[in-house]
């Protein structure tokens, strides 16, 4: 069977689920350095737990900044998050619940 995710990867999954869709915001909420976050994101993408999409140019332009790459959980990612939460019980409380804010 697939190996368990590392704590960092699990934390990133959790951050994505909590509504932090791009790299630097994930770094901000998890406190992980960029050298950890990006490789972990790519690895999660290869494993099929997350997928990436480019933000629409129109939105970016209206914010007068370049388009970002957004990551989101796949169905498999959701399942995997449930598994890792069992494994790392502290995970649920490790992040402030941001979903409310983003609403």
């Amino acid at each position: 069977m697939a190996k368990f995710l590392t704590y960092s990867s699990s934390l990133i999954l959790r951050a994505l689920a909590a509504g932090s869709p791009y790299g630097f915001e994930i770094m901000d909420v998890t406190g992980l350095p960029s050298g950890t976050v990006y490789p972990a994101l790519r690895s999660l993408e290869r494993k099929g737990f997350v997928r990436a999409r480019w933000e629409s140019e129109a939105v970016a332009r209206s914010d007068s900044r370049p388009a970002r790459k957004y990551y989101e959980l796949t169905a498999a990612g959701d399942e995997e998050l449930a598994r890792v939460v069992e494994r790392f019980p502290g995970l649920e409380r490790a992040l402030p619940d941001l979903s409310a804010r983003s609403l």
Partner: protein
Amino acid sequence: MSGLRRQDGAALALVRASARLLPASQRAGWLREWTAELHSTSSASGWPLLRALGAPVDAVALSWHLRRGSGSVIADARHAVRSVVRRPISSAFVIIVLALGIAASSAAFAVVRGVVLAPLPYPDADRLVVVWDQNRSLGIERSGPTPANVVDLRTRSRAFEGLAAWYAGEPRTMSGWSAGSSSDSPEDSSGPTKVAVALVTADFFVVMAEPPMLGRAFTAAEVAAGDPVVVLSHALWRGQLGGDEAAVGAAITVDDQSLTIVGVMPPSFAVPSADTVLWVPWDFDRAYERLGHVPRGYRFLHVIARLRREATLEAAQTDVDRVMAGLAAEHETNRGWSSVVVPYKMDLVGDLRPALLAVYAAVTFVLLIALTNAAHLLLARGVGRRSELAIRAALGASRWRVARLLWFEAAILSIGGALVGAALGSVLLRAVLGLAPRDLPRLADVAFGLEGVLYSLAVGVAAATVLGAITVMAGVEAAGVAPGRARTGSGEGGRGRLHGGLVVGQVAAAFTLLVMALLVVQSLSRLLVVDAGFEPDGVLVARVFPDARKYDTVQKRLAYFDELRGRLDALPNVLAVGAASGLPMNAYNNVPSVPFAPINQELVPEAQEADVFMATVGYPQAMGMRLLRGRGFDDRDTTESTPVVIVNETLARAAWPAARDGGVGEQVRMGFGRARELSFQVVGVIADARSRSLKVEPIAEALRPHAQAPYVTMNVVLRTDLADPMQLAESVRREVLAIDPTQPVHSITTMSESLGSTVAPDRLSMWLLGALAGLALMLSAAGVYGVMTYGVRAQTHEIGVRMALGSAQRAVAMHVLRRGGGLLAMGVVVGAGLAWVASRAMSALLYEVSPTQPASYLVATVLLSTALLLACWLPARRAARVDPAIALRS
């Protein structure tokens, strides 16, 4: 904030630089993501540069993953290692076969490098040349220049920085040394020993440009003044003088003369030879003072010169030709003589060079055969992998990836073979050096060393390239076949042709080697049965050189040798005793070449010359020379009686061509130096002897009785019935010291040994070429056996069909044999062509054997056919026993 903006710039630069780590296809997207992220950071909060530090980490991780994912080099290499390890036996075979070839090749390379390629261990050694005199009309290829010629060459030639001469005179008696220049308390009391001395002209050490390790060389002033100075060899200094640095300035006693040691040479200095221990200054004007002039007729010197920096060898030759032409016009004795300039290194290793190059060529053939065998093995291994490769191809592996994988395997095996080969090669080299005769030149300079290892690796890389190419050709073809068909595919087709081509090449190489070896064997066997004109077996030779100043009168000398002969004759097991001033095959010959003519003709200098030996009563018997007519020397020949000579047949025929069996009773005149013409009565004629070398036709020779020409430097010859003449050595030493305790024997050897050392290079090349040809025969038989077995296995199905359709066992066996025979025949034809070229190149090695002599080709064909047909017969028999029922089911 300007601080923040500066950070932005730096962060962006770092991200851009990191992007370069990625494959081009990924770069744009990756860069876009990172710049977008950086943008939001700078506009919000935080430290963009700190965050950008993750970019290189991300880029490295991503690119590593991408490469691995698409089948990286590392993954293929890992796979290749696995597939080598998974077939341990066939891998080991490939490595061993390659190692054998590489070992032989690297050992031969070490010898060629040390002897032929490496420069001599002297400063700017490639500018050192030797000069020999030559007289084409007399058939003399090489003769030492005369002292006057040396003086003339030195003053008239323009190509040389310096030109020196040496003469390895008779060994001298060294009887001790004392510290301090005038102390008379000898510290060494080990008794007198005979040592090898070189008389050298003042500029000898200047030409060699090798400074003494201790002290200094002698000066031109010392040489001209005749000061009693000497330079020692490292060996003598370490041995007899205990390596004492105070030796410089001390005195040694040589032939009762006290010489002051001015310098000690380094251990690598070996000119004229490795056993030279003393260099004594030599000034022609002083040496020939009594004569009144420097002589122009005595040809005995060795000349060594240093070319000017800008002078080429050709320019030096032209320059010397000009000088010699001038001398020939001025002096009658120079007429017909020219000089040849030879690089010193070539002069030292000249005789060995063709043999070494032949061995090197032979070794290369063995390497090629080994390589072919390795290719057979790899191809045969490929049979089991056809389906694996085909599946890989079907799964989308490109041809390039399949090729890379096969190439990696070939490389691993080849480099493995090279490493094992280097280890084996150094062992082999030590064994060959142990077998080689000690007096072959420059063997001390031969070592395996780092160069041997690098050479092995270079051959390994070449092998990897070739083997890789061959397996790739076969493998990529297999990968193109559909997986289902690959399993039952017939062994014929492209791969069969590849195997066939390799077999033909292998047979050709083995054939060439066999012919080379057979030619050398024949050459040596002819050389060994050549009638030398004397009987070398059972002859002991003791060199006795009593000091000429102590034995300064005719009476003293005759008395000395009479007593010696009497004492030695009385020893048990001694059949005959004699002595001569020179011996066949001897380095210490003291034998003048003089013009001769019948008494009724004028003496024409250098028209015809004879070597004149001074010989005592009993010498021809002791040496086993055959007296054809007349008598030997006896008591009738004294200082007072008529001067007599014994001549050899060549001289008799040259002087009296009309008379058959002539000579005895005739008068012959001979010229000993200018205006010293003597006439002799011929009392006997002896059979011709090959005195210079077994390979050189006999020349005119004459023996003068020692009683009428009492030379002091003599070689005492004893014929014994003992199996090993050396058993007499101790008794001989004792008897010699019993006559005069201050005059020891210089050295004792046997005639067979001196004869053996003259054919040593021939013998060595015969053994080496023979061994290599044997190895080649074995390897190619193994290769052919492997290929035919593989062919039969691959065709089992087809054979089964044939037999099911009614083919007889015999016919099946014949089918296999026919294929083997066809390849063999083609190999022999190609090999004959190769051998023809190779054997002509080695004609310098051959004695009285034509390089294109058909017998060798015939014998090689028979040997090779027997071995190879046997190698085909076993698989043919296996094919005949194929059970069609089983074969068809498979």
